[in-house]
């Protein structure tokens, strides 16, 4: 059957092509490869210097932390988990959008993912690297950090397998490994393209090794696609499991505001929400800087904005349910925890969270807002602020006012808390800038797959018309 054209049908919506500007296979290759082949631009050098300096600041502070101990943070009794945990959850969450775009949207046959999946996956990997720093440095005595792993030893000492902190190691570790494999598998055909285009011998050899002998034959593509499908299948449960496990760090406790059954799906929705906002922020900048307007179109942005809107409302649903059930439970501690959040000493943080996560994304009801680049850029940043504050509200408010009023205290960060958060962005952006400079930031092979020419029946129509 050859019923593929729906445009002529009565009552059909007009279809906008995914990729604009009458691209050919060649023009896509040229456009994307060229970014990694041209001479390094001065702007890039300046930006990288800035990011790398901030990253250096990050490592310097970590050095001081190792020397002095975690007392340099604002941690005190009863708030034993401060910004380090907030930052950890924030960065792990950011990663989720990459996996969702590359794996879940792939399984859902969403073709528009092809323009954004590569750098979303890269973002995932870098975000997880940054995230892993925080629990690593939080252990205090970092030289015995290997205690976290269940390593056989002569003392018969094992970590507590019932501790969610141990599950974190497994969950995030698996996540990182699978994401890296998925990302690299996707890169192979594009690396081969770069190898074939290489002008210098060094580049040819480097890219040649990285491309693992890819020749682009039928058989290779067949295996490649099966591997890709299997990795997508493996990554999909990870989208749900990683942040579910992170949520158990809080939810397995008996602390009001932490222990509630909706936490796993609620954390996952929040992670996707913040991750999409970060992808959007990065995509807007990269698109502008490298003139990728035809490949990453407003249509792509609009779809991402819709996902931000949906996941934002899921998070809003969870806020609402928590609040309602806290009242409904009839348990005065539960009730207090939530009233304290909204009207207590940290009310300012709570309302920043509500404003950024629930209220501001409502602007996206209007198509004009969904398709305006300045508006979505602003919103994407607000969402990330809001999601950072969500983790702050969860972590700090429940601890600061616990069961024993005599031990209540107000938590304030020190300069090192703030410095490490800023520094973590430095590390993240350094890695990301290196990525866009040296690797194809858009999957050429996959974008070509969604061009009209890739349809096996594409040229039949033309022959028909004469």
């Amino acid at each position, binding site marked *: 059957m050859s019923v593929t054209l729906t445009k002529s049908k009565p009552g059909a919506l007009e279809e906008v092509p995914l990729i604009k500007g009458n691209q050919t296979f060649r023009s896509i290759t040229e456009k994307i490869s060229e970014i990694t082949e041209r001479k390094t631009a001065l702007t890039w050098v300046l930006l990288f210097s800035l990011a790398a300096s901030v990253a250096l600041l990050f490592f310097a502070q970590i050095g001081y932390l190792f020397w002095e101990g975690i007392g340099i943070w604002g941690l005190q009794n009863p708030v034993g988990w401060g910004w380090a945990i907030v930052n950890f959850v924030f960065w792990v969450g950011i990663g989720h959008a990459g996996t969702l775009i590359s794996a879940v949207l792939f399984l859902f046959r969403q073709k528009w993912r092809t323009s954004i999946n590569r750098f979303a996956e890269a973002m995932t990997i870098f975000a997880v690297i940054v995230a892993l720093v925080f629990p690593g440095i939080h252990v205090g005595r970092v030289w015995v950090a290997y205690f976290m792993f269940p390593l056989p030893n002569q003392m018969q000492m094992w970590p507590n397998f019932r501790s969610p902190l141990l599950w974190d190691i497994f969950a995030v570790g698996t996540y990182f490994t699978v994401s890296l494999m998925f990302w690299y598998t996707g890169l192979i055909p594009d690396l081969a393209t770069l190898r074939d285009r290489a002008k210098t011998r060094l580049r040819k050899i480097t890219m040649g090794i990285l491309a693992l002998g890819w020749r682009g034959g039928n058989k290779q593509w067949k295996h490649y696609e099966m591997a890709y499908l299997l990795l997508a299948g493996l990554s999909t449960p990870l989208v749900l499991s990683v942040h579910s496990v992170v949520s158990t760090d809080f939810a397995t406790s008996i602390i009001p505001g932490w222990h509630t059954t909706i936490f*796993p799906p609620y954390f996952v929705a929040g992670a996707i929400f913040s991750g999409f906002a970060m992808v959007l922020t990065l995509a807007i900048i990269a698109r502008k800087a490298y003139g990728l307007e035809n490949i990453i179109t407003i249509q792509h942005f609009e779809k991402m904005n819709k996902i931000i809107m949906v996941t934002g409302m899921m998070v809003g649903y969870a806020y609402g349910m928590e609040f309602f059930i806290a009242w409904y*439970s009839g348990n005065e501690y539960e009730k207090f925890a939530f009233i304290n959040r909204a009207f207590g000493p940290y009310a300012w943080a709570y309302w920043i969270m509500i404003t950024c996560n629930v209220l501001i994304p409502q602007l996206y009801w209007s198509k004009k807002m969904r398709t305006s680049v300045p508006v979505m850029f602003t919103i994407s940043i607000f969402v990330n602020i809001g999601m950072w504050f969500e983790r702050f509200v969860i972590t700090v408010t429940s601890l600061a006012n616990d069961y024993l009023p005599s031990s209540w205290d107000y938590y304030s960060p020190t300069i090192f808390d703030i410095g490490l958060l800023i520094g973590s962005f430095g590390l993240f952006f350094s890695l990301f800038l290196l990525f866009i400079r040296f690797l194809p930031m858009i999957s050429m092979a996959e974008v070509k797959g969604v061009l009209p020419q890739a349809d096996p029946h594409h040229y039949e129509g033309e022959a028909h018309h004469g």
Partner: protein
Amino acid sequence: MKIDLNTFRLSGTEPTKTRFLVAGILMLAVSVAGYFMDSHQFFFSYLTAYLFWLSLGLGSLFLVLLFHLTGTRWGSVLRRIIETAAVSLPVMAIFFIPILFGMHELYHWADPEVVAHDEILRAKSGYLNFTFFVIRAAVYFSVWTFLAWKLYSKSLEQDSNPQAEQIHAMRRISAPGMILFAITSSFAAFDWVMSIEPHWFSTIFGLYIFSGGLLMALSFIVLFASDLRRQGLLTTTITTEHYQDLARLIFSFTIFWGYMAFSQYFLIWYANIPEETIFFLKRGVGSWRIISWVLVLGNFLLPFIVLMPRAVKRNNIALSVVAVWVILMHYIDLVWIVMPVHHTQGIHFSWMDLTTLAGIGGIYMWVFWIRFAAQPVVPVGEPSLDESIAFTNN
């Protein structure tokens, strides 16, 4: 039963309709007799049966909303079946009335005597009181009826005179509709199910009930379409490709249900707070313990493993068996939630379980068939229909 392939209308549906109507009335009449024999048992059986059929309507309504919001094309051939299952939902408002007469049997908090001596229930009485309960139910049904009816009538309008405007209109309704659906279905789960144990609470409970309903609706579509297929109807319209995708959705939502069930059980088990663990302790008494395990293995593990191979998803008989199994498990899930409140010592089977189930179901399916027979069985005006018919997975 015959189909006119130009208009996609059925004829000769009268015997089917009559069978459902007669079965429904007969079984309801027998159930009423049961009310006079053991009113407690009657109401608990009735509530379980009620939730079972309600979940079909709500699961379907969700799918209709989802189809419009995502612009689903592969499934356009299935849309009319789903819409019809959703638009039959208002009949459940009538079946809700008996529940109002069974408030004392079902909901402790409805008894002022009990509330007066119970501090926790007094704290909740602002929400858990008869008047507000009825008002909320009225709101839920108004929302569901409005959404289902509005989308159904737009879809019929599209049949006769397809315009792009209808697609826009259906999307415009579905976006806020989805929000209303999320709120109302969760609160309905709190009101009608969770509050039979009024001390207990769980924030994920609304999603848990919702995930079961979705499995119910998807399995129903598989069975219903397969039944048409066995009668030689729509055999080239709803193809193996559509069954494969439906099976994938059942597979995914099996995992989703497992995820919800696990999150709820695990966090409560781990924190071990008596006011929460009571729910699972009750379901660990006597033979209820067996049912708890049946759910873990039968509602999650078995469909998860069986639905994994492509061959099963593309074999209509195998898939139908799985769908029957999933529906059976969904019913057992509801029994497991509702019945331990009444039969605290273990499983207790009553004939009223069956008669109420068949009674409400008979009428629900009768209403379903009246609509289904009156209109084209696929959305003939939907622009993506041809694409959906020709859809392949490769």
